């Protein structure tokens, strides 16, 4: 995470410490994205420490081992969701979408359902999770890349058409999944239902490592494209005019988004819903459109969301609810707020 705070030449004239002077200085400091990022980082660190070190029932070492894995999982997922959603917004020139509109979540559920339907829940549970993860990731990435090259790589090159087809296919997958689930044995159905809620507390460590590697590689691949992403916010015509090889850049970014989303969904289940909240909060919090700030802010806000939600869940509701319910409730309210605010303008 970059937390560079560029030292500025000290203000030449010593300002008298009037209340107004202090306030305007504070505003000037607050206006710098680096300061905001650093502050957010500090808050996230506090939350992680709270989660790790408070309310330890027995041995601290044991608790740390269990909770440490959860925290790493939350960070991996938050980075994947935060980065992929912001990049997806820039690619599609739209800020109220998440990559789930391409049917990632629906497709994940379809694959799980098909496996349970064909092999039964015992075989599903007995399958090596690594194998299952690899299958999920490969199928999801293959599907999204197919959709992308079909609708964007050819002559048509329409992002909107691609999104529309994604929505239609997502709906189709959901209905198909539901239809198959109706014919399932109740026991099989219960096993399946468990997979349909994101679970961050007990991830498989091998899978976590694999997902972590993919997410780190994906994030590193975005770094050289940060300035290009900024240009893409100007829209395709202007970006092309400024010398961006639009088709190639969009394809590369889309591939990165697909891999990150597929890997984290296969790790913890459908989780994309909170990308919308995180990305939009990041835009207003970072106070700049530049991706070198919005991307890390989105990732950190994602961590804050997940760790904070988990804290609330474990310590306040005593596991009385599921994390996805907590976040979806907050996310739903936030989405309504976004839509209403847009409408009010």
């Amino acid at each position, binding site marked *: 995470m970059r937390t560079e705070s560029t030292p500025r030449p000290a203000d030449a004239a010593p300002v008298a410490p009037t209340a107004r002077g202090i306030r305007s200085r504070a505003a000037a400091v607050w206006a710098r994205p680096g300061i905001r990022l650093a502050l957010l980082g500090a808050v996230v660190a506090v939350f992680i420490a709270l989660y790790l070190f408070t309310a330890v029932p027995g041995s601290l070492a044991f608790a740390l081992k269990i909770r440490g894995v959860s925290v790493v999982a939350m960070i991996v997922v938050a980075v994947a969701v935060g980065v992929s959603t912001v990049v997806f917004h820039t690619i599609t020139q739209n800020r109220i979408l998440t990559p789930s509109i391409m049917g990632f979540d629906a497709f994940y559920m379809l694959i799980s359902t098909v496996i349970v339907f064909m092999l039964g829940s015992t075989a599903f549970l007995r399958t090596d999770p690594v194998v299952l993860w690899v299958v999920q990731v490969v199928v999801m990435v293959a599907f999204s890349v197919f959709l992308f090259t079909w609708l964007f790589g050819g002559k048509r090159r329409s992002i909107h058409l691609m999104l529309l087809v994604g929505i239609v296919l997502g709906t189709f997958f959901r209905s198909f999944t539901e239809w198959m689930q109706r014919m399932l044995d109740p026991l099989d159905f219960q096993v399946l239902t468990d997979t349909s809620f994101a679970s961050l507390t007990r991830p498989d460590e091998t899978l976590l490592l694999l997902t972590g590697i993919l997410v780190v590689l994906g994030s590193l691949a975005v770094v050289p494209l940060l*300035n290009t992403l*900024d240009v893409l*916010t100007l*829209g395709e015509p202007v970006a*092309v*005019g*400024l*010398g961006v090889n*639009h088709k190639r850049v969009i394809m590369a970014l889309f591939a990165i988004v697909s891999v990150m989303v597929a890997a984290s969904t296969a790790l913890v289940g459908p989780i994309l819903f909170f990308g919308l909240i995180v990305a939009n909060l990041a835009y207003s919090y970072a106070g700049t*459109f530049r991706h070198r700030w919005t991307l890390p802010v989105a990732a950190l806000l994602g961590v804050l969301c997940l760790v904070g939600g988990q804290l609330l869940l474990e310590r306040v509701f005593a596991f009385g609810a599921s994390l996805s319910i907590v976040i979806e409730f907050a996310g739903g309210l936030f989405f309504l707020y976004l839509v209403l605010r847009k409408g009010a303008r």
Partner: protein
Amino acid sequence: MIVLDGVTKRYNRQTVLDDVSIILGEEGVTALIGPNGAGKSTLFGLVGRLIAADAGTVTVDGMDVRTASSGDLAKILAVLRQDNHIAARLTVQDLVEFGRFPHSKGRLTVADREHIDRAIAYLDLEAFRGRFLDQLSGGQRQRAFIAMVLAQDTKYVLLDEPLNNLDVRHMGEIMKLVRRMADELGKVVVVVLHDINFAATYADRIVAMRDGRVVADAPVAEIMRPEVLGAVYETPVDVREIDGRPVALYYS
């Protein structure tokens, strides 16, 4: 020089550009006129590599726009399209900085900063540097976009209907600026205009298009004739001489 050679573009079965061959870029300001749907914006799209031609080639200083690197082209050719809707909130300074992207790839050098300052000064936008684009009037916005194009520091500048939605005063300001860009900065400007009289006043050469073809291409005086303009727009246009300048009257 921008050379279009036998360029044809079809959408489904409709031909929007029909075997157009033209050389642009020998004189300062060229105005491109013609009725709606004549193919003017399509022509700009082809030169600006947003649209691929079905036949023919477009070259800019010998570089084929379909095969040359987009980054190299952006150093010699700047295109400003009609509607520039931007989703993100940018300040004027941010926008003009983007004009340096072809040269700096986002890492601004001292020389880049000089270009940016000069462009902002040239467009008289110093007071608005820190303003967000959505806080500007139409005329100021248009100037901010032209400043970006200017910061790009290209030999060729293509402006698609820069006078859209502007009032009389701002239209005049933009056209004077276009003229100065050609005279003072030595740029080759091609500008799409709907107002024939602005074209006649500020351009050196007028290219008229209709139904995807170039129907007239000549110095101003030869285009500003009732029979030529009448044929281009398929409507009666009267041309009178006022203070020694031809003025088209099409209000009847």
